[in-house]
């Protein structure tokens, strides 16, 4: 049962092989039995999950079936879920019970999904290893001495460990794709604005994008179908039609033009990863794709630009956590300034404080032009690089990460080394483009992710390519030893 994909489970539920209550209970039991090894969940929502499952079963009897009726999923703990804790992996929100549902949560509920719980994450989605969570690090199911990646590390580990068939995640600089790669699962970061941000606690507003984390491209298509679409509550959500993502999964890849950016295959890339990605490209060539080398000349500017813009937005977005209306408040503040400084100083962890300070500095008087404005100009140059290349090729393929999963604590003390983890992923957030990571092999016994990058709103194409690869290979079906 636990090796079935979301799509397969949907069929089994429809056939009446088991009920949603049985399925949900089985997953809840499994999480309780195994998650102490991974720490992938912050909150388990057993009671409400079983209620949702029961309702889905009842509706099914009446013939009312949604796309995700009775299927268990879990949400990254930055999506607001009414009545459930929404902590963002932070002490700041350890006591925060959201009074409302994020739009994405509402849509998944409407489609019949069952929420098993909330997954662990880097605090406020700031991190690439899931070590900055107030609730402790998440461990990679492939090797529990290693990190699962971040910031959606709990979601990635939970799907990899078969604790849940699918999760939501969010991606600001690679936070869906990088942990998906490190945990050997399928992760999709859609085009910026494809999925509503309303109710997703903001890290960097002009970068943040929610997406599905699943065991297959077919499942990602199913999840995206429900999650995508215009939301009147989010000014930045895209007013673009939502295609039938599953209708194009089986399109032929003959004639597909793939670009390989030379800058992404340069120094610093793990040879095992390079080899696996090359092998995957050859697989596409066998399917009739044409491959050519392309160039994204401003690649090395991505990290500088991102680490100005994202912290700047974050420094402002996180000002609302002030101990006044919700969230952590320090003991006996002597005055207003004390209330602010200690509530925030004690409520935020060190990486969050570091990024708030970097962002505050970048926006402060006298530095705006040299940092913020300059970074915005570079952002456009990076976007232009991609648009130029994507005129010439249909998709770009590259490794998702420079290395496979690293050891816990290995990069934790060096923020700059940690930031380099996102070198292949955050360019897409700067440009707002969609990207996917799918398993394409192993290096040192650890999963390797292939990144597929497309034009704006080309999710259907990306899912088609990923699905065809998964039909031809079985990397996505590999599971960690013992699972």
């Amino acid at each position, binding site marked *: 049962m636990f090796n079935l994909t979301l799509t397969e489970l949907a069929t089994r539920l429809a056939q009446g092989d088991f009920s949603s209550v049985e399925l949900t209970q089985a997953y809840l039991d499994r999480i309780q039995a195994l998650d102490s090894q991974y720490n992938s969940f912050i909150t388990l929502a057993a009671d409400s999950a079983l209620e949702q499952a029961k309702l889905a079963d009842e509706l099914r009897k009446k013939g009312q079936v949604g796309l995700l009726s009775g299927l268990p999923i879990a949400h990254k703990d930055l999506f607001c879920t009414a009545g459930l804790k929404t902590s963002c992996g932070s002490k700041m929100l350890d006591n925060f019970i959201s009074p409302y549902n994020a739009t994405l949560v509402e849509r998944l509920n409407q489609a019949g999904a069952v929420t098993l719980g909330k997954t662990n994450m880097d605090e406020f989605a700031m991190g690439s290893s899931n070590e900055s969570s107030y609730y402790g690090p998440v461990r990679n199911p492939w090797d529990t001495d290693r990190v699962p990646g971040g910031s959606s590390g709990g979601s990635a580990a939970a799907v990899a460990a078969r604790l849940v068939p699918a999760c939501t995640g969010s991606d600001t600089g690679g936070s869906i794709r990088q942990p998906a790669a490190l945990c050997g699962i399928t992760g999709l970061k859609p085009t910026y604005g494809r999925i509503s941000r*309303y109710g997703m606690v903001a890290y960097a507003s002009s970068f943040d994008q929610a997406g599905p984390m699943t065991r297959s491209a077919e499942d990602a298509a199913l999840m995206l179908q429900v999650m995508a679409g215009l939301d009147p*509550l989010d000014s930045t959500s895209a007013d673009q039609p939502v295609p039938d993502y599953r209708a194009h999964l089986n399109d032929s890849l003959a004639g597909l033009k793939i670009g390989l950016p030379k800058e992404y295959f340069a120094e610093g890339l793990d040879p095992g990863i390079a080899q696996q990605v090359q092998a995957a490209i050859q697989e596409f060539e066998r399917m009739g794709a044409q491959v050519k080398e392309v160039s994204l000349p401003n690649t090395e500017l991505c990290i500088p630009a991102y680490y100005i813009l994202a912290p700047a937005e974050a*420094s402002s977005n996180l000002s609302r956590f002030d101990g006044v209306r919700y969230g952590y408040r320090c003991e006996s503040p002597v005055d207003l300034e004390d209330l602010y400084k200690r509530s925030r100083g004690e409520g935020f962890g060190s990486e969050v404080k570091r990024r708030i300070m970097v962002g505050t500095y970048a926006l402060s008087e006298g530095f705006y032009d040299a940092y913020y404005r300059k970074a915005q100009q570079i952002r456009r140059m990076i976007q232009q690089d991609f648009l130029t290349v994507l005129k010439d090729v249909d998709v770009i393929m590259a490794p998702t990460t420079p290395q496979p999963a690293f050891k816990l604590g290995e990069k934790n003390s060096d923020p700059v080394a940690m930031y380099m983890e996102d070198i292949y992923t955050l360019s897409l957030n700067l440009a707002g483009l969609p990207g996917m990571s799918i398993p394409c092999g192993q290096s040192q016994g650890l999963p390797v992710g292939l990144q597929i990058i497309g034009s704006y709103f080309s999710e259907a194409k990306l899912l088609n390519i990923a699905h065809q690869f998964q039909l031809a290979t079985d990397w996505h079906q590999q599971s960690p030893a013992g699972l």
Partner: protein
Amino acid sequence: MEWETVIGLEIHAQLSTRTKIFSGASTAFGAEPNTQACAIDLALPGTLPVVNENALRMAVMFGLAVNAEIGKRSVFDRKNYFYPDLPKGYQTTQLAEPIVGAGYIDITLDDGETRRVRIHHAHLEEDAGKSLHEDFHGMSGIDLNRAGTPLIEIVSEPDMRSAKEASAYARKIHAIITTLGICDGNMAEGSMRCDCNVSVRPKGSPTLGTRTELKNINSFRFIERAIETEVARQIDLIEDGGRVIQETRLYDPDKNETRSMRSKEEANDYRYFPCPDLLPVIIDDSYIADIQKSLPELPDARKQRFIDEYQLSEYDAGVLSTYRPQADYFESVAKHTQDAKLSANWITGELAKHLNQHDIDITACPVSTEQLSGLLLRIQDETLTGKIAKTVFEVMWNDGGSADEIIEAKGLKQVTDSAAIEAIVDQVIASCTAQVEQYIAAEPDKRGKMLGFFMGQVMKLSQGKANPGQVQGLMKQKLDALT
């Protein structure tokens, strides 16, 4: 030394929208604390703003009314600072690309001279909540009902040279925004608030002196007094060898002094940057043209029309066109009575006096235009003397009723029966022998003045009801017959 005063004003006007600028919560005044603060207004994690079209429309109306360039592209920025009445930790405002660009208005001073005051720009922003300082065990209470109420901030150039000019400018802005119906103009409730930037310089000096900012002044009278007080303070300070420091000062109307607000004065660094949750607002020519067509008649145009159409004096036309409800009231009465001069006299006289005494806005006036018109018609047809009409008005104000009903009930009808008047005249002549003798003895050209005494006696005996014209004619005729 002779000093010149330089003043610029920043006026905040709350827009009369039904809902907040970025949320669907009501803006109605006077609700229970925090009952009109929704999840967005409270800055709950994950919430996002969407711009209220009506707020934008009203800002464009203002721009068109002050001859300004309309920003076809305008951008919202964040102004970052911590304060408990500011839930997000930033105010969403417009800095570099406001909705209203440079414009101007003409103000008329008491001596009839006109001066042009340039408007630098006007921008949309959100209001903050309120801190209540009643004693909550040494704490302050925060009410966020007002948070997110749309404001337009109107920034003038430093074009005013006296307190009188500043208040005339403020009055004119008030007239424009109330005429447009975009603000209720209630300064006591804070719907319109005024900050004055004041500096002095030696007359003829081309450079500006150091300015201070007088915050949140809530009446036209206080604008004048606050500026006068501050100008005197600055001149005294400089003449005593001191130096004005740039700071924010608070005007205390009870003590008639300004004092430094040092607590708010620490080096502010607002770290403005474009709000990433909102996109550029783009409007086209047809949107602007539609609003232009729907604009009501503005105070200047109405004043001119009152002069042309009703032959009102410059002064009366100015007074009556300033406040739209009063101007509407006047036009209604003037149309009814077909006597603009009489209508104007009563509205700027007796009616205004009563409204002032009782501190009532004309929109809540207990005497309707129909009632006042009915009264004036009875003056016109000589049913009432001017004096009795005031008595009728008093009854109308206090107890209601039409002029005819009151005249009937109180027997106030003017006596025009010549026999009755003659009887009273004869009675007066018979009883005032000494005065009659003096009249006879007087030089003919002095007698006119002496007639007043006899008139007064007749009016007294008739309880004011005798038609004064008839009395005068008959009395003169009878007395002259005795000489």
